């Protein structure tokens, strides 16, 4: 208990120095947490994937479509409960900065396959009735102020021209990890227009979404699907939804890795700062530590004092940093528009932040405490700050 008293009072000796050090740690822990959350957000799609859904695409790449006629053959494959499909639209809303995913989907089947998109039944009915209707996520609606009945213009890039859709439904996410920034409309509407403009491109889909009843059979069913279409005009590649999403992440994995590395760099930066603080404080108190040793206290007691001071400063500041992560994350995501659809601070991130604070406090104290413990008493008594 005495040790604690000494530790606390020592920490408050140089209030400005301790305050600055804590500020630095708060910023570092906060930045670390935010960056880890950014990395988590990158994997949000993969984490939200269902293990009972498979995605079938053209084996060459996503750029190539699949014929819609595959649907019937897919339905007949054993293990597949239902089949839906979607086309990536890639349109522009006003200007390129407003990026959000847009899909032309099979209205009858798609939303049954994705129960995490919660749509009020009467809104879904309205959507099904209106060929030009669209279903938008709550986040998009809030961001752009869209309400039911609004007409949304999109400029096509893959399917060129000016398109208009009417908001018939707004969906909410079932979980916090559900993406509510997606724009869906009817595949039939798209197909009709393509039929008129580029007949050769009509009746093709981007991906098929397959619902299976047993998650364990995923690999087997995927193989079966691809075998069915081997040596046809459009060969397929079928994988679990999670693998499909991870494929996207891996395409930008260099960026993700860079962010991860940078997030640890900030910890190193602040570790240097805190090590400096502890080194300076210890040096100033060398004669006091020597006095304690002269009186008869063991080197272990000194270690306790120094590590204790370092850890208390680091952990208090670290906790503040953790607590601030939540409001800062909310502000951050509000200002990045549609860049991050899901941005949740996970409990694992908080644990890592606290762990980082612990490491900072520990490492910073190592050299100073060894120095104080090993120093000869006589020379310590002679030492002047």
């Amino acid at each position: 208990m005495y040790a604690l008293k000494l530790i606390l009072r020592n920490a408050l000796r140089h209030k400005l120095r301790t305050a600055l050090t804590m500020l630095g740690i708060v910023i570092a822990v906060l930045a670390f947490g935010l960056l880890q959350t950014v990395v988590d957000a990158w994997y949000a799609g993969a984490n939200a994937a269902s293990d009972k859904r498979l995605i079938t695409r053209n084996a060459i790449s996503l750029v190539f479509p699949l014929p819609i006629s595959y649907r019937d053959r897919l339905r007949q494959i054993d293990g597949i409960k239902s089949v839906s499909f979607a086309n990536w639209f890639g349109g522009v809303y006003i200007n390129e900065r407003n990026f959000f995913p847009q899909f032309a989907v099979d209205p009858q089947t798609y939303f049954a396959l994705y129960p995490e998109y919660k749509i009020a039944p009467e809104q879904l009915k309205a959507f099904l009735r209106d060929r030009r209707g669209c279903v938008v996520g709550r986040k998009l609606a809030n961001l752009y102020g869209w309400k039911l009945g609004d007409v949304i213009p999109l400029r096509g890039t893959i399917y060129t021209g000016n398109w208009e859709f009417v908001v018939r439904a707004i969906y909410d996410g079932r979980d916090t990890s559900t993406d509510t920034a997606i724009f869906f409309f009817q595949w039939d509407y798209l197909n009709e227009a393509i039929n008129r403009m580029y007949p050769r491109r009509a009746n093709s889909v981007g991906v098929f979404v397959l619902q299976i009843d047993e998650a364990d059979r995923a690999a087997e069913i995927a193989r079966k699907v691809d075998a069915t279409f081997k040596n046809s005009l459009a060969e397929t590649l079928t994988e679990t939804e999670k693998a499909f999403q991870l494929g996207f992440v891996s395409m930008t994995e260099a960026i993700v890795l860079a962010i991860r590395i940078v997030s640890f760099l900030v910890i190193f930066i602040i570790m240097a700062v805190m090590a400096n603080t502890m080194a300076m404080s210890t040096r100033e108190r060398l004669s006091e530590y020597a006095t304690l040793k002269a009186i008869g206290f063991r080197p272990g007691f000194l270690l306790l004092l120094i590590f204790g001071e370092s850890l208390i400063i680091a952990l208090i500041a670290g906790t503040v940093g953790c607590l601030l992560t939540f409001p800062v994350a909310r502000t951050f995501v509000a200002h990045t528009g549609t860049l991050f659809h899901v941005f949740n601070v996970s409990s694992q991130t908080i644990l890592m932040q606290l762990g980082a604070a612990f490491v900072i406090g520990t490492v910073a104290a190592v050299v100073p405490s060894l120095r104080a413990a090993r120093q000869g008493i006589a020379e310590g008594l002679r030492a002047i700050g």
Partner: protein
Amino acid sequence: MPVPFSYSLRNLAVRKLTTALTVGGMALVVFVFSTVLMLEAGLRSTLVGTGSYDNALVTRRGSGAEVQSAVDRVQAGIIETQPEVMLDAQSQRLVSKEVVVLISLRKRGSDRPANVVIRGIGPQGMALRPQVQLVDGRMFRPGSSEIIAGRSIGERFAGAGLGETLRFGMRDWTVVGHFDAGRSGFDSEIWGDTNQLMQAFRRTMYSSVLLRLSDARAFDAFKRRVEGDPRLTVEAKRESVFYAEQSEALARFIRILGLTLSIIFSTGAVIGAMITMYAAVANRTAEIGTLRAIGFRSGSILWAFLLEALLIGAIGGALGLALASLMQFVSFSTMNFQTFAELAFSFKLTPAIAVQAMLFAVVMGLLGGLLPALRAARLKVVDALRAA
């Protein structure tokens, strides 16, 4: 009369551990700052180098990337016969009608997928791109299932090495050569015969038309004509401008993310410098009193301490920059947001970046040292001496 420079310099050397730690923190921040700017510069230089100023690239109006564009044979034919198109020595039009698609390839080692650009080029395709040189093997034979790959693609992706085959469109394609595109975007592409590829992919339309202008200044006239022609639904850009625009989104992302991080990190380094300088002032209070008593003005004291802080910044900056320059040996590849295609680029250190990094470092030192230096300057001589 100013306090001698050596005073500031030697004081840094006296407290080695403290100086080292403070400088180290600064160096790490400058490292992050420089590396980010270098990555952005590398990206831009890769894409800028990808096109020629003398070439015009024609794509479908409003399409964005070549992958999304479609130009049918009739329109391509009209574009080909425009008067501004240059003729080569054999009086052939320097035009390449090309198809551009993405194929999903697996990276060697990790087996993870990435979208790689496959470009079908016309007979003038190589001539239109003088920066591209064959470095291994040979050119593909027109009309065959042979392809050539950028050297970086050959190294990183399974099936793209010399002599290896890729399978798509129900055919096997053999890689017969590797090319070096002078660190431009083409290094991340695979090229083949446009007609063969269009057949394999069941495409009837080209993606784009590339042509050389006989006079670079004629571009505006060319652009007006093709974009105003009622038979055409196209847009024309100088090839270099087209590819530079393709990097905008990614470059901006890197820049914003990187600068935000650098600023956040810099607060840590500034705090570190502040702590160090406050301690320096506190420990040398008697010394300051002595200097004042001797006759040095408070302004000189201010400057002496500020100089120490600036030196910490400068040394940290130089160290961080030196570390960052090592990144030039690292190559970076990721999917370009705008084209959905894999793009390899590297870190490029420019004189401008070096200057910006050093300025950033010195400013950090300044911010960290200002308040402590003011405190030192404001000490009353009497109080300072009494503290001895």
